[in-house]
């Protein structure tokens, strides 16, 4: 009898939620790394961090007030739920993945630099929480309007597309294998060209509809990648031999033969969509193989990236270099994340929610130690705001152009300057390099001045017109800019600074604007910590 009860108890016990598994594995890691964890982050820290990570901007004064004043239990979970369905979340996810796919310097920039249709399409997918496998399939199949831009980047360059797809979706660096067999790993040049075979038949059709360029992807029924051997041996007159498509794991693609009477249409003559359907679509087979639950690379690469997005550092670092022999810092955790992601049908929202609500994510970043992204996650990671986040946060903090919402523009062409100056703040290996140029812009440029300068309804204006005592106004100042209340030393200092000549309205205004400037330039604004 006891045995049966025990059995029933085991069967009915709920599986541990992913966040508990995360916390258990991370705690095990602290023992391995012999580190002490920092305390948990307070509400203000959690608020700002989760806003930035989930929506790419900071909360407004009002939003911050509501959250910090709320005494209810479970408010962090409720906040996360709200943020995951917020419009800004979809926009932020789109910006993150758009940057991964296209980087700051996309290939084929004449066509890809302006890609609003793609961005809109991608944003819609995140808004609907389309499962990750379906999303990647859609990008490769490129059948929905706006989704074609991924392939347009690599028009007529199947080799380059192979490198990109492998790196982004499978976390594998194939670049070296393009010109010679990899000196250290099992990947050969033939493996590379086998994958390239999936892309060689793709065709890009460009049509102009009004002011927009619209792209359609087609696929021929014939055409092969020609392999000429190592680049060092390439000579004029040497013929290439065709390589049959082969999945990276090794299995060759099973393709039916083209019927003898088949005549390939002349794609150069087709000027309007749709393209004819191919006799056999390699693209469909590739999309299915990449996103299959059994694909050893796909789920692992995805969860590793999402983990890195929130935790600052992948379990395999760097995130796009998952080799068969690469050592994850927390192997059991990576396995669990991948397994559960598949079991939950690649639900991104679910995955993000579990990570953000784990205690591991909610550690404070205060503490000894100087690493920006500690390997054992004993402290929260520190990273600079991206250029887009920085601009959004500046607008929210100063109350600039709020009415325009997500599509608001920065003043004085700040947008293009800031993309250039703040676009790549890290060195080649992801370490933040505080550039003097950032500070010359922030110290001397008119753009930041425009944002701060008191104008109807913005932060400076609101504070100047308020009749509350300056102590309270400084609290509001800190909440608006840094999403936290000042310490008493800070409050004292700022009140004294602003009201040094309190009878002179011009001086008070100038000093208030200088204070806003100092806060917006501080580390607490510049970084997501």
């Amino acid at each position: 009898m006891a045995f049966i009860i025990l059995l029933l108890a085991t069967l009915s016990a709920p599986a541990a939620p992913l966040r508990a598994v995360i916390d258990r594995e991370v705690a095990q890691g602290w023992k391995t790394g012999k580190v002490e964890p920092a305390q948990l982050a307070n509400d203000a820290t959690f608020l700002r961090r989760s806003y930035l990570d989930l929506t790419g901007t900071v909360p407004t004064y009002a939003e911050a007030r509501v959250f910090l004043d709320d005494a209810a239990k479970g408010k962090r979970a409720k906040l996360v739920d709200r943020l995951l369905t917020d419009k800004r979340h979809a926009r932020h996810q789109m910006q993150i993945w758009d940057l991964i796919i296209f980087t700051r310097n996309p290939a084929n920039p004449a066509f890809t630099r302006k890609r609003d249709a793609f961005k809109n399409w991608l944003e819609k997918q995140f808004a609907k929480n389309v499962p990750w496998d379906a999303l990647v399939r859609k990008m490769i199949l490129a059948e929905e309007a706006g989704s074609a831009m991924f392939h347009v980047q690599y028009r007529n360059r199947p080799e380059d597309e192979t490198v990109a797809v492998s790196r982004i979706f499978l976390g594998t660096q194939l670049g070296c294998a393009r010109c010679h067999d990899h000196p250290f790993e099992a990947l050969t040049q033939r493996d590379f060209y086998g994958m390239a075979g999936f892309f060689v038949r793709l065709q890009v059709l460009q049509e102009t509809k009004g002011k927009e360029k619209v792209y359609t992807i087609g696929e021929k029924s014939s055409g092969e990648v020609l392999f000429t051997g190592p680049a060092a041996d390439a000579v004029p007159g040497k013929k290439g031999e065709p390589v049959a498509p082969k999945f990276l794991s090794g299995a060759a693609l099973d393709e039916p033969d083209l019927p003898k009477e088949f005549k390939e249409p002349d794609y150069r003559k087709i000027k309007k969509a749709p393209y004819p359907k191919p006799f056999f679509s390699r693209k469909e087979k590739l999309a299915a193989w990449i996103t299959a639950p059994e694909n050893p690379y796909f789920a692992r690469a995805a969860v590793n990236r999402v983990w890195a997005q929130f935790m600052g550092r992948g379990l395999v670092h760097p995130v796009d270099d998952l080799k068969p022999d690469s050592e994850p810092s927390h192997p059991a955790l990576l396995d669990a994340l991948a397994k559960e992601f598949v079991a939950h049908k690649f639900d991104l929202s679910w995955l993000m929610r579990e990570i953000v609500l784990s205690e591991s994510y909610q550690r404070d970043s205060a503490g000894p130690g100087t690493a920006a992204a500690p390997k054992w996650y004993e402290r929260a990671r520190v990273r600079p705001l991206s250029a887009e986040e920085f601009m959004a946060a500046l607008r929210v903090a100063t109350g600039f152009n709020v009415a325009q919402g997500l599509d608001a523009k920065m003043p004085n062409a700040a947008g293009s300057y800031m993309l250039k100056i703040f676009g790549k703040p890290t060195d080649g290996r992801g370490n933040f390099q505080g550039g003097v140029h950032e500070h010359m812009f922030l110290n001397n440029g008119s753009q930041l001045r425009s944002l701060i300068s008191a104008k109807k309804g913005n932060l400076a204006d609101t504070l100047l017109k308020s009749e509350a005592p300056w102590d309270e106004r400084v609290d509001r100042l800190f909440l608006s800019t840094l999403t936290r209340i000042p310490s008493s030393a800070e409050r004292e200092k700022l009140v004294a600074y602003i009201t040094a000549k309190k009878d002179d309205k011009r001086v008070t205004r100038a000093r208030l604007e200088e204070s806003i400037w100092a806060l917006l330039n501080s580390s607490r604004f510049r970084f997501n910590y």
Partner: protein
Amino acid sequence: MTFEKSKQIWGLKWDADWVTAVQFLGDSRRVVAGNRLGQMMEWQLPDKLEGDAPQPLRQLTGHTNAITRLRCTRDGRTLYSASYDHTVRQWDTAAKSDGETKLTLNVGAVYRRSLRHSGKKVEPVLCTVALQPKSKIFANQKEWITVMLFSADEKQLITGDDGGQVVFRDRASGKVRKQWAVEGWVHALAVSPDATRAALSERRPLVFDAASRRVFRLWDIAKAEVTADLSKDFSKMYLPALAWSPDGKTILVGRGEEAEGKIWLLDAATGKKRKEVSPIHQYGVTDFIFHPDGEHFLSAGRDTVIRIWNLKDGKLVKELGKPRGGQFKDWIHAIDLTPDGTLLAAADMSGQVNIWHLA
């Protein structure tokens, strides 16, 4: 002709280095080619357009660096060769040979095989060729001569070089009749049939540097003045191929140097684009020639393909050849036609001269 039945008859193998220039000697069925090392070779094509490719007939020695252009007078008697060695040499094609020599035709293949430690052995292919008597130096510049052509009446020989010098010399005397300097390097040059106007493209091929120069202008030759600056219509393009139609009405412009080889037909009077042809030579255009039938022109490029076009409407009539290699394409550096327009010679980078019969 419709060019439908055109086909390649021979590949005259000369695997010493890239073949970079080619020229028929009048209607004599003799053809001369030059290569990247400065060597020059001559073949006599048999009357019957079939059978094995003929062996080379004569070797022409003199240049010490790449041959960029070969031009022969219509009577087939005087051949000029322009080179990276800063000179133009003049050759008397009727002169009797003064000796002979043995040479290896496939030096390139033998060398490449020596770099490997495996593979089939490559036997040297020997042949004996006659020696062309010494040439004389017709022109001496200070830089690589990239452009060399005759005026339509063959009275002038015109050169352009990387020192920016454009020089019109009297062909009979060798005297300079007109000369001017441009700021960049002369990349391509075409002259109107009446020799009053020129179309000139310049370059300074810096990469990512503000001083990079890509300019295309029309000139009045007598005044040595620019009459139209068309650079904006070809913004940031290298234009290695220019040609002026014999009827004076059309200027052909070809884009190249590893960029998509677009071709435009310009109205010679105004310089405005009349037509852009399609398809392009992938990786760039290298050469143009007009067909003596007055209705067609041919283009060659870095994609191993020669295309025949209708001069009036810019429509593609025929493609000769197919791209050869995988990721890396071979070039046709230059093309020439016999005066009756039935034979085409192509300077092929892979070390041969391709002879096509056009029909």
